[in-house]
């Protein structure tokens, strides 16, 4: 790996999966370099996350089977309960005291399964950022997840600077106005939040919104990003015919709102899970719009995936210490990088030194 590698920030919550992905089938994911197996208990459907390596010979538990709420290792039958304690080994009554795998704090919230990577004693569910629209019946959501063979910092960089829509996603979601419109950037240092806003007063309507909203003229297009480092990224998108603004009382009945959610979960080094979701408050029962947005957004995400895979392969061939050049569009991405570096540093400190 080259010098572009972004350090992992431990002692943080990450999205391990969509809630609907976890069930009675064992699911293996690698998060911040830690292999994890996920499933739900039989009776109350509580999600469980354990280290995905049998203590015996390191066989992946995710390639094993469930017996009730216990995982039976698919190699020699070492059996683990939901706390990760080994309760049975083959051929003998005595189970070695050290026979246990780590269990991870989990929180199911907003249709997401959040996992705490770090010292379990520090896990505070109150610090998980919210994405309420994902589970709100007033919104209709399509989701997906694409693994990227790239440093997670590349995905953060990509999402914090939407001017790339004009070039990488031209003809889908990008129009000339995106790259041409100045941004404002706000960094809440202690909360670890970066906000980037781009408000276009008079812009072409890209096909993504023209076909989903039915607007055929020019639009007022607002993009308001909130990045809750390290994992959750929200793009609050507002589309309306040119000149249509929110009412004086703050309501906004004549605009189309889309919440674009990303969870950026580092996997092993140089790999990242790209969880994406598009939620809308219009045509919520229209199956055709749902199918269109799912397919079209998948296409957009794959443009990013292919570009970031290529970028990582390219960076891997660059000599150490290569130079970059940042311009105004990068103001928010630079802020995000700095906050990630701080979080990584804090997460690497001994427990007593963490705030």
């Amino acid at each position: 790996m080259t010098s572009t590698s972004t350090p992992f920030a431990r002692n943080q919550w990450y999205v391990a999966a969509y809630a609907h992905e976890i069930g009675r089938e064992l699911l293996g994911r690698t998060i911040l370099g830690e292999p994890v197996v996920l499933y739900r208990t039989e009776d109350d459907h509580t999600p469980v996350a354990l280290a995905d390596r049998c203590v015996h010979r390191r066989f992946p538990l995710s390639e094993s089977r469930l017996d009730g709420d216990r995982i039976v290792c698919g190699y020699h039958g070492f059996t683990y309960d939901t706390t990760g304690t080994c309760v049975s080994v083959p051929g003998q009554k005595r189970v070695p005291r050290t026979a246990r795998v780590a269990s991870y704090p989990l929180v199911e919230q907003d249709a997401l399964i959040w996992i705490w990577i770090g010292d379990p004693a520090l896990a505070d569910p109150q610090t998980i950022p919210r994405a309420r629209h994902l589970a709100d019946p007033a919104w209709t959501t399509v989701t997906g997840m694409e693994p990227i063979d790239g440093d997670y910092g590349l995905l953060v960089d990509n999402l914090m600077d939407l001017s790339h829509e004009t070039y990488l996603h031209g003809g889908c979601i990008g129009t000339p106005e995106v790259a041409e419109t100045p941004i404002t950037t706000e960094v809440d240092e202690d909360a670890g939040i970066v906000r980037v806003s781009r408000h276009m007063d008079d812009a072409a309507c890209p096909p993504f919104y023209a076909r989903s909203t039915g607007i055929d003229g020019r639009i007022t297009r607002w993009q308001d990003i909130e990045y809750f480092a390290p994992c959750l990224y929200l793009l609050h998108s507002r589309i309306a015919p040119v000149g249509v603004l929110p009412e004086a009382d703050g309501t906004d009945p004549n605009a189309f709102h889309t919440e674009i959610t990303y969870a950026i979960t580092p996997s092993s080094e140089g790999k990242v899970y790209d969880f994406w979701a598009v939620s809308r408050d219009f045509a919520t029962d229209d199956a055709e719009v749902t199918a269109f947005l799912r397919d079209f957004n998948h296409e957009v995400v794959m443009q990013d995936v292919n570009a970031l895979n290529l970028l990582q392969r390219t960076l891997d061939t660059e000599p150490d210490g290569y130079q970059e050049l940042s311009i105004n569009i990068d103001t928010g991405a630079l802020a995000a990088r700095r906050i990630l570096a701080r979080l990584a540093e804090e997460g690497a400190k001994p427990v007593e030194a963490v705030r």
Partner: protein
Amino acid sequence: MTGGDTSGKVYRIHWLPGTDRLHGTCHCGAEHTAQDPVEMWDWMLSHPEGHQ
């Protein structure tokens, strides 16, 4: 859509429309104009140095 509170230590950078200039405001109220985001962040994060 989120409950993200603002803690108070907020940096703001506006890209001035019609120009290539960035206008930054530190959480202490100091202001600065630059043409380069790297230079802007260097100034911002040097607080309180040069923020009188």
